[in-house]
């Protein structure tokens, strides 16, 4: 009887016991929710809301560092910024998008394998995935320059045995930038997907099996939908930082791989054009937020929050 073994399966490790229903009456004070929200709220207010509003205010000023900036509500800076840097905006979203897709494609099978076939060594495999990330972000990226130098350990040898043409290169190309972004984002995609898969109740898979679902149907109709919250979280954690990244482009990129993050950096530091830099940052933030909002509407944010409460 196939129903029998299912009953002996241990509960998934993430499952918690029944919730405790007890609630002390003194916790029912109407101020409690505000007090609980206060530390986090203040933190966000001081380090996020205030700087963001200052940024908005600065973006509407005109002037220069020497003569000073004056609030003129110069809204034209926004269309100007978009017009002037449309290439870099589009490139950033393209690179961020490609990187995200690559991350899903690479991380999903790996997370699946670790979650369902990793056995006792699951945590070892996860540790191995994370191991490179104990090294500083910049050092990791710079090490690519050493490994992938035109005549370096990898390409040099491949060229010597004639597998690659002499003028082939990886560094200073958009491939290198997207590769670097993907590499640096990989665990942020893998971990949420792994958590979603690992928490899946094996009874569901067995039930699907009992109902004569083939392997493809089990994956397509049970595993994949149940892991979508993990994918959603992974996409957020990957796409947003990858799109606004500037380190990979400046270390690995060539002449036409400037991303919007590099532009913000130059506009702010080198050109000391604080209004324009603020405007570009604000535009980037708004586009990302709108994008995420649409994405959340399509896939449903409730699932993400459910992830944390299960």
């Amino acid at each position, binding site marked *: 009887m196939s129903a029998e073994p299912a009953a002996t399966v241990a509960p998934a490790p993430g499952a918690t016991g029944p919730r405790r229903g007890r609630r002390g009456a003194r916790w029912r004070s109407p101020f409690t929710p505000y007090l609980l929200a206060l530390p986090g709220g203040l933190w966000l207010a001081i380090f996020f809301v205030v700087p963001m509003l200052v940024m908005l205010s600065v973006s509407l000023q005109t002037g220069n560092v020497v003569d000073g900036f004056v609030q003129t509500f110069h809204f034209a800076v926004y269309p100007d910024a978009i017009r002037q840097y449309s290439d870099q905006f589009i490139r950033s979203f393209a690179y961020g998008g490609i990187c995200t897709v690559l991350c899903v494609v690479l991380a999903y099978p790996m997370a699946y394998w670790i979650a369902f076939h990793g056995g006792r060594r699951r945590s070892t495999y996860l540790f191995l995935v994370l191991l490179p990330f104990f090294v500083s972000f910049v050092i990791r990226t710079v090490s690519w320059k050493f490994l992938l130098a035109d005549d370096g350990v990898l390409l040099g040898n491949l060229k010597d045995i004639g597998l690659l043409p002499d003028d082939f290169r990886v560094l200073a190309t958009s491939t290198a930038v997207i590769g670097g972004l993907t590499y640096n984002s990989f665990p942020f995609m893998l971990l949420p997907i792994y958590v979603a898969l690992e928490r899946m109740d094996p009874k569901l898979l067995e039930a699907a099996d009992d109902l004569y679902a083939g392997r493809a149907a089990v994956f397509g109709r049970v595993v994949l939908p149940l892991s979508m919250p993990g994918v959603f979280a992974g996409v957020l954690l990957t796409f947003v930082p990858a799109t606004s990244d500037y380190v990979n482009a400046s270390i690995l990129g060539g002449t036409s791989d400037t991303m919007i993050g590099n532009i913000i950096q130059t506009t702010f*530091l080198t050109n000391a054009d604080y209004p324009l830099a603020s405007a570009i940052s604000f535009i980037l933030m708004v586009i990302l937020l709108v994008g995420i909002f649409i994405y959340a509407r399509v896939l449903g944010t409730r699932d993400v929050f459910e992830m944390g409460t299960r």
Partner: protein
Amino acid sequence: MTTHGSSDHPGAHQAPAPAVNPALLRGLTQPRLGRRDVFRLGGLAGAAALLAACGVKGEKKDDSASVVPSDFWAGKTKTNTLDFSNWPLYIDVSEDGKSNPSLDKFKADTGIKVNYREDIQDNESYFGKVRPSLAAGKSIGADLIVITNGIFLDKFIQLGYLAPLDQTKLPTFAANADASVKNPSYDPGNKYTVAWQSGLTGIAYDPAKTGREITSYEDLFDPKFAGHVGMFGDNLDLPNLALVGMGVNPEKSTPDDWKKAAEKLNKQRTDGIVRKYYTQDYIDALASGDLWISMAWSGDVYQQVASGKNLRFIVPKEGGILWTDNMCIPITAQHPVDAITYMDYVYKPEIAAMLAEYINYITPVPTAKQDVSPALADSPLIFPSESDLAKTHRFRVLTTDEETEWNKIFQPVYQS
């Protein structure tokens, strides 16, 4: 930035009016107020206040109002302490790496203890870091800083952030400094600055890769080297050397010249000749063979050659750039007398020689040549020949309006 009440601000009528809406007031007095509304209201009030916030006050000091040396130096005395902020790897270090012999000698000779910090990574971010304190008239914790001549040094001077130097306190400088750093175009009369070290911007190449001797700026545009040419990704060296390469003296250049230079550089990029626009990392790419030929700074190349790499540095026949890193005293310095004492002290030939041995850039004291090792004394990168120096130019000094135009023309070259 100061936040004014919106009523006294001229731009206030344009801001969202923070006046209390009767409907809102009614809402506030009734217990219908949800948690979300509280947060929403708080945000709205903050937004209104900040949008009405006034701009950053103009900081420019009129020439007439700028501090005269005698006013600044009156009542200032030696304290035997000096906080010196410099760039990394820019001073002599003892064998064990624990001390700086020239600073130890300075202490023995003058009694002034130097707190040496290597906290200047580049001019722009350092300017961004210290600007708010200097604008507010507060100490930045440094009495002596080192800034390259160029757009950011101009800003330090224009904004009145630097103390005017008392020339009577600089006799050794007056006696020993090279002509190239006395009365420079970026600081006439050395009113605010005294040179620390200078360097040349020219071309470095690997003769084994290029297969020929490089002599001209035009070699950077040779399609044969496509994909292996390095250019600087900055708004100083890249544009100025391009102007020199076109036979234009940057200091006398016009916006038309800038556009022509940018056009030439843009074509170099779209033709696929440039591999990448580099900051400091071009030298690693040259050493690893990714670059065959690149814009370069003389001292970097000297260090690579000293470590056995087959690289050469040339001042192109069209000319090169001579830049100078300058010691200056922030207007808010706590120990200015000690700082100016040090400024003068490093112009003693034996001290300049100690520094030159380690730093490998161009010393501002030509007579130090007799005190350095022969390898150094013979190097044209440390003691450049008269003919090389005669070919060099200085960076264009830009007014703020010119700078905006300059950046608009050249930024798209290196950040396309």
